[in-house]
Structures are given as C-alpha cells and as structure tokens.
C-alpha cells in the first residue's frame, strides 16, 4: 500500500489521531509518520498527562472492562499505568496487553522486537526467526526464478519444521 499522504513511498505506519473527538486515520510511510509525530517527543509521549490523552480514543467499553481488572503479579489497575505512564511490573504488559496495544503502537510504530533473545526463549524463538528468514529468502529466490537455490532453501525449511 502506498502512503496516503505523499502517495510515493510504501506505507509502513498506521496513524490515528483524535482531536476533540474528531478521529483521523491514515496509512503513512516512515517519513510522513515521523513528520506527523515530530511535535511530540518520545519521552513526553508516555509520561503523565499525555498518556491520558493518548488513551482517550480507546473505546469506553474497554475502560469499563479495565475498571475492575488488576494485574496478577503486582495487583495495580490500569488507571495507575495511565496516570504514571509506567508499568507496575513486567506482568502488566501481558495482563493489560489489549488496553496498552494502541498506546504502544503510537509510541513504537507498527513494529515488533527484532533484537536479542534471552536464554530460555532462544531455542524456541531462534528457530522461528530462522524460519521466517528462510521463507523470505525462498520468496526472493522464486521471484528471481532461481529455482535451484529455492529448492535448497525449501529443504532447509522442511528440516527446521521437522525439528520443531
């Protein structure tokens, strides 16, 4: 999909803005997205008051559902996170995941973790990442009509799958 603002680059961000109840949505490229966001600093974005504003587009029913919900580890409720802009404990990110999703997307863009993996997750996630990498290579090889290379990659994927 092309960026809805410049119409030239590939859209990689989903931008949502809510000003006094008027909601604007757009699929943007990284350049246009960063221009849109430039009036905010990342640090301010998730601290104190701004987080409250940021959470305002969240539908009312979500808030209602959140009222009684407490984190299973630290027992804080969602209003604590919205007020301080910080998580009460690591488990908050998991227990309040649906509520934090939008805010985290606005903070970090539409991206997921690509970096290092801790020891206990390494085997499971490492294999999955390797598989994704190979699938990408396979698509590229097919697109370039390099069928011999594609066959080698396909075999590698098969052997990885059997290991999993």
């Amino acid at each position: 999909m092309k960026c809805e603002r410049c119409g030239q680059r590939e859209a990689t961000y989903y931008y949502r803005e809510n000003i006094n109840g008027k909601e604007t949505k757009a699929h943007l490229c990284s350049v246009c997205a960063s221009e849109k966001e430039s009036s905010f600093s990342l640090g301010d974005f998730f601290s104190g008051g701004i987080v409250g504003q940021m959470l305002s587009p969240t539908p009312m029913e979500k808030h209602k559902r959140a009222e009684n919900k407490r984190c299973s580890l630290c027992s804080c409720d969602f209003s604590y996170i919205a007020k301080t802009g910080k998580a009460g404990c690591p488990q908050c990110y998991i227990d309040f995941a649906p509520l934090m999703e939008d805010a985290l997307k606005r903070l970090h863009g539409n991206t997921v973790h690509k970096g290092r993996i801790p020891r206990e997750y390494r085997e499971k996630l490492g294999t999955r990442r390797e598989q994704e990498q190979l699938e990408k290579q396979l698509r590229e090889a097919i697109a370039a009509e390099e069928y011999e290379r594609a066959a080698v990659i396909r075999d590698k994927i098969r052997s990885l799958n059997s290991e999993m």
Partner: protein
Amino acid sequence: MYWYEKEGKEQDIFLSTRVRFARNLRDYPFEPALDAPSAREIIERVGGILKPLGYESVDKERGVLYEKRLISREMAEKKTPSEIYTKDDCCIMVCEEDHLRIQAIKSGLDLEGAFKACSEAEQALDEKLRFAFSEELGYLTHCPTNLGCAMRVSVMMFLPCLSEAGKMKMIERELSRLGITVRGSGGEGSGAEGCLYQISNSVTMGVTEEEILENVRRAAESIVLTERELRRRMKEADEDKLRDRLLRSYGSAMYAFLTDSGELYRFYANIRLAAILGYVPCNTCIIDKMLFENLPYHIISRKGELSALERDKERARAVSEMLRKASS
C-alpha cells in the same frame, strides 16, 4: 583508574562511549510496588552471580559516582535499597528504575568495545536469571519507551565550535527525526555545560542491537565532520584572537582564587580546546579529570562539608595545582 583518565580514540571530540542494557526479573514488580525486602533479595541474587566473576560492590558516595558519569542521577538520589557492582569498564546498577541497568563505559570512541563488554556482563546474568521478556515487545522495562532491545548507546562529545555557532538546536532537530537524542552531558534534563553533549538512540523497538550501534555511529560521524570543519575555519579566520581568548581563560583558571562550578565548566571548555589546538601543554585526560574531580560532591568528599565560598576556594586551588603539574 576511571574512564576519563585513560587514553581513547578520537579524544579531541569523544570523551566516552557507553552501552547500557535495561533488564528486569520476571517475578518481581517495579518500584514503588517493589518493597525493601524484595529489593534486597534481588541485590543478593545479582551479587551472588557477579561477585564470583570478580565484580565488587561500590561504597563510594553516590554523588561522586554521578559526577564521574558512572551512575544516573536517579541512582545517586535513591533512598530505597539499591546496589552498584563494578568490574573493569562495567558498572551494574541494581534496583534503579529497572531491576538491572548493565552498562559498560569506554574512553573515547569505542562502540564495539563497549558493546562487547556490556554484552558479556549481560550474558553472564542471563545464564542465571529469568529476564522479563515478551516475543513481541522484547525486554519488558519499567518505562514503555525502553521496550524492545532495552539498549541505550551513547557517546559523550565535546562540541565547542558547534555550540558557539548556535548549531546544536538544529542538529538536535535533525537527529530526532532519525531516532537519535541530543542531551547535555549529565543525562536527562541537564544543560550542556562545558560544551559536552550526549548523543544516544531513542528508538529501541523494531531494530537489532547492531542497528542501534550503527545508527549512533552514523549520527556521531556526521557531527564530528561539522565540528572539525568549524574548528578549522575558526582557526583560519582569526587564529590570534582565538588563541588570545583561550589562553586568557587558561590564565584565569591558573590564578583564580574563587572558582564556582559554572566557571569551572567555562574554563574547561576553553582549556580543552586550547589543548587540542596545541596552545597549552596538557593532554585532554588531565583536563577532563580537572573537570570531573572538582565538581561539588568531589570537593565535599575530599574536604568534608564546606560552605559554598570555601568550596569555590578549594576548587580554584585544585584546578590551579592540576594545571601547574600538567605543564611542568
């Protein structure tokens, strides 16, 4: 020996390179929910892993460690249980904002060196602890801005000419678009005294550790080119005037009877530039030491509680002594 006393690469611009990982233990809450016994438990567990590896806990005054840029201001001001373990270039803060802040500091520009040292410390802890992690969000941190790699890479740069030319605001704006932050040297919220700036990554999600290193390297390289060019032009435009201005500052520092912290930073910037341009017989390490070791907590640590006036007197004396020693 502290980082600022060691020789490093490209010290005319770079004072230090720091890599820092934030890590948290899965089964403990963050502050303020983390109570004192739990914080002590974390400190014990981490100490139990680090001490056999040669790490030592540091009992020096926290204010002094902050002035040496070894710990954050937050850590220095902390009232609840917390601990600092160090070994060589690594300094690990336990129970700061996050349960663990693992950092390595190298003199001059040394991104690979700092990353390697920090990674080794992190790996050693990863072997024995269960870090809070999510497949999509990466390492789970107290502040959501650090999620992902939870890695901060920063270089401390001496930029007198860019600073004087009023270009830093523009650089700050440009780099913020690339996910790079420019701050005063004392970290968040501090001014750029002594023409010292910290350049660091603000993006930690959706990138690999290596990409973060590369982004900071590129940002720093672009600044270096402009600063060096400005230094060359400034020298060409009117070297006599420049030399006169810097040497007057050197003379004042040498003979002042009262020097407050603000003046120390001004002396520092001028004398450091004078040394780089070869006008005074000092190397930059001595000048950096002159600055860091004459900040308020260092003076109190050396001489005990003094009035502000007495501190300024002691500072003036120590600066003069250091400069004399360096030139003899």
